[in-house]
């Protein structure tokens, strides 16, 4: 990041100080400064959900007055969020900065064991044949032909398995992340997952990220956050292909993680701040950001400009996932302090249903009220 900012200094003589802060610290700082009208921060970069919170509190400037940014088209999903904010808060609260999602990485070896009816093309382009059931069949085939369980999921402590559950599987099978937690479609989902787990590498429960297992060759098909697999693809781009996730009966559910740039209300040097935003959203700079952090450009013109072959591969995979016709992108629900409880419910469901083999309906019925209670308490609609 600092390297990039150095070139801005060079070009326009703008000096930027880059300070990483945790979300809670950032929120506290903004609140204190904006209310006291003594703002020291010119640009804020954060996840869309975080910016959502800031905007709802009225801590951000309306960026519309700076005009448009030429020479770049933002991806639709990003613009949708910007529009949503405009609807909710009446202002253009942020400019999209980068995006991430969770994808599937395939070791090219695995393509030798595709099951009947599924071609490489299907997987890579994300056609309607690339379903979760097809994945199970594929994994089973690998197991039968090689005796190894080659699918990997980050099911360990610190792993993001729960995102797979609520943002991918539940959306693909029930259309919603939580609304139909206990439903016949959900039962279908868990049955499929149980079947898939039979062909998952047993050490999955110790993994918090899939980069190493992929590189070691222990895992041939992995699902994880782009930032957690990028190291693998960067190191051995010829070994892997990054593909969109499979679809379920209702569609291809996936999570969009969006980060944006905003200007706090009453911030100093706002024109210069805008220049910084302009800089960070330029296609070339977007490409370079991607090369570094495992988050990806929100500007369509950026992808072709990426130099690193590994990063390029991941970026292509991400683009294809974003472009699938049956894609159902969702955002991680913003639940404040209850987020931990939300996650725990899904993880408990996983542990009891898939690992311990408890009866699906019983577990879902038991956990559903707890889930609903969270949304009731926060007074938000169920996602």
């Amino acid at each position, binding site marked *: 990041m600092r390297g990039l900012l150095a070139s801005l200094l060079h070009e326009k003589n703008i000096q930027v100080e880059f300070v990483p802060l*945790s979300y809670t610290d950032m929120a506290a700082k903004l609140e204190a400064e904006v209310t006291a009208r003594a703002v020291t921060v010119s640009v804020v970069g954060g996840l869309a959900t975080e910016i959502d919170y800031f905007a709802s509190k009225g801590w951000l400037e309306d960026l519309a007055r700076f005009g448009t940014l030429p020479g770049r088209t933002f991806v639709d999903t990003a613009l949708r969020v910007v529009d949503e904010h405009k609807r909710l808060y009446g202002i253009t609260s942020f400019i999209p900065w980068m995006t991430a999602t969770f994808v599937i990485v395939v070791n090219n070896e695995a393509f030798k064991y595709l099951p009947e009816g599924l071609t490489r093309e299907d997987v890579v382009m994300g056609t309607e044949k690339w379903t979760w059931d097809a994945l199970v069949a594929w994994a089973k085939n690998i197991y039968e032909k090689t005796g190894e369980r080659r699918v990997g999921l*980050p099911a*360990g*402590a*610190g*792993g993001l398995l729960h995102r797979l559950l609520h943002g991918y599987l539940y959306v693909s099978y029930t259309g919603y992340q939580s609304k139909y937690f206990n439903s016949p479609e959900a039962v279908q989902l868990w049955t499929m997952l149980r079947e898939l787990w039979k062909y998952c590498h047993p050490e999955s429960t*110790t*993994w*918090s*990220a*899939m*980069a*190493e*297992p*992929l*590189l*070691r060759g222990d895992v041939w098909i992995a699902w994880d956050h782009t930032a*957690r697999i990028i190291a693998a693809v960067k190191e051995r781009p010829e070994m892997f292909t990054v593909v969109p996730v499979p679809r379920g009966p209702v569609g291809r559910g996936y999570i969009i993680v969006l980060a944006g740039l905003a200007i706090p209300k009453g911030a100093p040097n706002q024109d210069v701040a805008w220049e910084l935003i302009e800089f960070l959203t330029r296609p070339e700079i977007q490409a370079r950001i991607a090369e570094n952090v495992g988050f990806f450009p929100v500007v369509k013109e950026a992808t072709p400009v990426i130099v690193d072959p590994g990063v390029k591969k991941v970026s292509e995979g991400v683009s294809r996932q974003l472009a699938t016709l049956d894609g159902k992108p969702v955002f991680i629900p913003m639940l404040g302090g209850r987020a931990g409880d939300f996650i725990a419910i899904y993880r408990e469901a996983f542990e009891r249903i898939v690992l311990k083999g408890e009866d699906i309906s019983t577990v879902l019925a038991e956990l559903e009220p707890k889930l609903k209670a969270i949304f009731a308490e926060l007074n938000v609609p169920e996602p």
Partner: protein
Amino acid sequence: MRKTWIYIIAIFISLWILTPIIYTTIASFADARDYYERLIPRKYTLRYYEEYWRLGVSSALLRSIQVGLSTVAMSFLIGIPAGYAVGRLKFKGRDVIKVTILLFRVLPIVIIAVPLAVLFIRIGLYDTLIGVALIHTAIALPFVVLITSSIFISIPRELEEAGVVFGLSPLQVFVKITLPLATPGLAAAAMFAFLISWNEVVAATILSYLNRTLPAMVLTPYVMGTGGELPDPYKFAAATIMIVPALVFMAYIRKYLTAMWGAAGVK
């Protein structure tokens, strides 16, 4: 016992202790891909230590040292007088007090840490080095008292009485005669307190967030996850870094240890 058996057991014990340490240290310098394939890696690199330096292990290391030194200072300041009293002076309730002090260590640190965390948040000590040091002092204090009491016991009374004969006040006796004689033992006690702080992980984790000491930082999933986030040699480097003071300490403390523990245990 026959000599051969003795040597066999001796070698077994040595291997049992040394193998994990040596292999881990070797592995921490090994190139990850090579390490995964071979038993004895052939390619080596300093990369992981460099990365650690970048990731902030150096700051965590520094913090651990700071907390450790503060712990030694505070526990000595508070504990040495008590150790002297308990060891040297005869007074009513001495045994009760001795047991009580020990009893305070009986309760798990986990119980103590959580409420203190809440308190610290309120008074602004949360996520500070001094906060962690205060807890570590509480943990180390009973040991310091116990150890120093047995050290002071072993100092010949005649020397102290000689000091009194020469007209020194009790405080002067203590400072000019007792302390210098006790220095080697006190040094050992200091190292002990330092190590308790250095190795302590539970309270350090609960009481800090950004400003973590080394073990606390290692325990966080980012660095820790036996998961796939980082290649294994990173963990080995972390372990090696944490072990080094232990080795230094043990080399020094050899002589004193059995005496100290013996005195404390059989009572």
